[in-house]
């Protein structure tokens, strides 16, 4: 299959144009929306995982209810961390 030279240059120009446009508009909005949908579950999942870890450790070491309380807050902190990271990533893309 041979590609004519004229077509190659036209393709190159068209490609560079598309890249610029896509970058500036729709794709960015799409990825922002994706990140926005992400944030909520990120926060909840970390709290849940932290609490579950605390519960398991509590039954292991027989220290009810202290570790579950500590790990609940650690999980909340991890959730915040995740949200901040996602927000930073969104800002970097801008």
């Amino acid at each position: 299959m041979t590609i004519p030279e004229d077509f190659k240059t036209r393709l190159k120009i068209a490609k560079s144009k598309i890249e610029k446009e896509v970058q500036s508009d729709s794709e960015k909005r799409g990825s922002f929306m994706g990140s926005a949908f992400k944030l909520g579950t990120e926060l909840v999942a970390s709290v849940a995982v932290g609490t579950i870890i605390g519960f398991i450790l509590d039954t292991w070491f027989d220290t009810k209810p202290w570790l579950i309380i500590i790990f609940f807050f650690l999980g909340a902190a991890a959730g915040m961390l995740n949200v901040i990271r996602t927000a930073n990533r969104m800002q970097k893309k801008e």
Partner: protein
Amino acid sequence: MANNPMQQFIVHKIGPEIKIAGIDLSFTNASLFMVISTSIILLFLFFGTKEKKIIPDKIQLVAEMFYSFVAKMINDTAGSKAKPYFPFIFSLFMFVLFCNMIGMLPYSFTVTSHIIVTLILALFIFIAVTIIGFAKHGFKYLSIFVPSGVPAVLLPLITIIEIISYLSRPVSLSVRLFANMMAGHTMLKVFGGFVISLGILGGWLPLGFSVALTGLEILVAFLQAYVFAILTCIYLNDALNLHH
């Protein structure tokens, strides 16, 4: 259709019961719709790439769009090192997208609205990424739990928080997809039920809502597939390029 909005999520057997070593392996409507979406993807990509024209026809154009979309996403989030994982992420994206989209058809079954399906996908990604991380960096991979520039006093605390945040990845990945799909489909059915119970006089408002929600659900179906794939890329990026 029954009035129960959760009726659509019931898994039932199709055909004979198959039991191997005490595990129920019967063919269900969930398996049926997985097979349907996989075959649609295969057929679509087969016809999309059959004739490789310079000036593509419509189906080839769409296939190429999907290809370049995923390739660009991988390149942007995980860099060129992630190129070998393109086939996996592409299949993952297409599978989730087509399962979501086929779930939008009336009388169909949404595979991704079951947490077991999304959890297995997410756990597979989680374990694979962890193995890739250890294979590429050895025990240095553990350094993602120890961020740089933290005072020594806070280090144990931060490490625990980082470990929790790492372990929460499969949970948030699976719960997000499952919850979005299930909530959306339940809502559609609830509004559909309102149309019937309010009758010809009052039913027009929920009918309008139903139409608008269907549009929203199609957006969510695409977006969740996109988020699922892009998060896989981000996790892969953490495993491949080890630093923060």
